[in-house]
């Protein structure tokens, strides 16, 4: 394969920023992900949907290095192979993720979270002989990121004491702080009330500028309002892929997933 001039079979001319081929992950003989091909076009919002147990989160963990695939490859930017790299190395190659279950540092404040995220690429984290006041140089950008996700004024309490919605907002801010090329959001609206869902949609719409977003999402309203392309997974395989308007009428999708969902409309 490689980077040919005619690499993109569908979107003419655009090389997918993230491409997976033949991804397989077995758990004791059970294939949670079973031969998935995925092309994510640069600058798009790409949703992964599917019923529970379809392999969405496993696929996510394969893309970000938190799980090693049994077989297959993942390539970013057309030539950088991700399989075999550690999660931290993948994060540094520009693939940042959020977690489905809020995953924060309980004793650190949101401000300190963002300082850590911003300090990562600078190597400041190794300086054990310096005062932690050296992190103050990230104060302004951290405050800016907090304001962006609506957490201004909540930067200085332990993250463990934040409300659920604010924890989710901090998750987004952390992923943003890494300024990733590809942002992977694992169910950004899981467990949210309608108001918070609307806010999150706005936020994702705002932060997608200049980057690619891949999201696992259960809420079809969110998928409808955000996603350019949708990949439907079932039993670890790709069932259908296409724009939301197309796949929502696909009979296979309706039986597999939307059929027993109240959002089929």
């Amino acid at each position, binding site marked *: 394969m490689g980077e040919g001039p005619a690499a993109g079979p569908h979107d003419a001319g655009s090389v997918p920023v993230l491409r997976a081929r033949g991804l397989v992950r077995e758990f004791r003989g059970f294939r949670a992900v079973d031969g998935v091909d995925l092309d994510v076009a640069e600058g798009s919002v790409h949703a992964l949907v599917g019923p529970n147990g379809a392999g969405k989160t496993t696929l996510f963990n394969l893309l970000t290095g938190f799980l090693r695939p049994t077989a297959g490859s993942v390539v970013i930017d057309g030539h950088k192979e991700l399989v075999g790299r550690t999660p931290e190395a993948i994060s540094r190659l520009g693939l940042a993720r959020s977690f489905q279950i809020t995953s924060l540092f309980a004793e650190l404040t949101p401000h300190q979270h963002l300082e850590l995220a911003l300090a990562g690429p600078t190597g400041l*984290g190794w300086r054990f002989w310096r005062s932690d006041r050296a992190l103050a140089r990230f104060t302004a950008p951290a405050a800016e990121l907090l304001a962006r996700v609506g957490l201004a004024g909540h930067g200085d309490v332990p993250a463990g004491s934040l409300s659920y919605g604010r924890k989710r907002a901090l998750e987004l801010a952390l992923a943003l702080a890494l300024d990733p090329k590809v942002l992977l959001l694992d169910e950004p609206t899981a467990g949210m009330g309608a108001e918070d869902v609307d806010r999150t949609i706005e936020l994702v719409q705002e932060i997608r500028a200049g980057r690619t977003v891949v999201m696992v999402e259960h809420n079809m309203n969110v998928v409808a309002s955000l996603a350019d392309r949708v990949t439907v997974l079932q039993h670890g395989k790709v069932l259908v892929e296409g724009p939301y308007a197309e796949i929502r009428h696909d009979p296979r999708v309706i039986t597999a997933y939307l059929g027993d969902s109240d959002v089929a409309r």
Partner: protein
Amino acid sequence: MILSRLARSGRGGIVLLVLGLLAALVLPWLIYPPVALDIACWALFAAAVDLLLGFTGLLSFGHAAFWGGSAYCTGLIVLHGGMPFPVAIIGGALFAALLALPIGLLSVRLTGIYFAMVTLAFAQMIYFVANQWRDVTGGENGLQGIPREFLGLDLSDPFFFYYAGLPFVLAGLFAAWRIVRSPFGRVLVSIRDNPARARALGYPVERYRLLAFVLSAALAGTAGGVFAIGHGFAALDGLYWTTSGQVVMMVILGGIGTLWGGAIGAAIVVQLQDFLATAGFEGVGIVTGSIFIVIVLLFRRGIWGTARHLLISRRQADPPVSPAAGAAEEPVESPEPAPAPASPHPAGD
């Protein structure tokens, strides 16, 4: 209360620091000088272990390897190299750090009880090597007659040697404090709280744990070196697992993640052992063990940790100084299940 007022004004730390330094300076006047030196050495050893246990989330049960290994190395440098003892102590600390490198490389992938067991196994291996390698280590007799002198000064009086060894202990404690309050220390706390998230932010968790392990070993080695010079010998039981167990006990008694709590734990355990030994009581372990159990059951945060917690909650309960400032402008966070009690060593990644 004066203490809580000081803590609120932010000067509490400085007052405690001055009190601590004063206590360190007058200690050999108050108690038997060799015991004072033991307390100082174990205090630094405990701080080194707390750097891992309280701030990195790793329970090392093999730190005797670094304390005892450095004691032997320090003794050998003085006995065979004829070097002044400060050089020997630094050499011992470097040796401990070097020893920690392969042990750390092979164990930092593990956490929780697995990490504790693997570090214990390595330390026991080193204990057996020291026991067998009689030509160098003296086997069961250990290294004896390590001279205590510096630039022609005879420091064999424990009272004077206390003041010769104290700068090393204080420098080690300062280093531990600096590490905990550095950008590196911040990353360590994040790794302790949530290693997967630290990875997602791009931090290579194992390498950070390894550096923390090596730094902790160097500090433990400093303490072990001062201890060896102070007693004039390096003994095999400094490498035995009971040494690792005792320092962990001191950290837990004083309070995990407090850094200074270990000094209190060290003072209690060393004093008690000395008292019971002088009284001719045989079952020292039964008494220290019982006290340990009582304190852990009554004060889950340890002595220092409990005191600090009481002070902080009292400060928060006090009404604000000026009624106008900070009344209720901040919206109250919606109720949330209380955060899980901080676990010193998360179960795993």
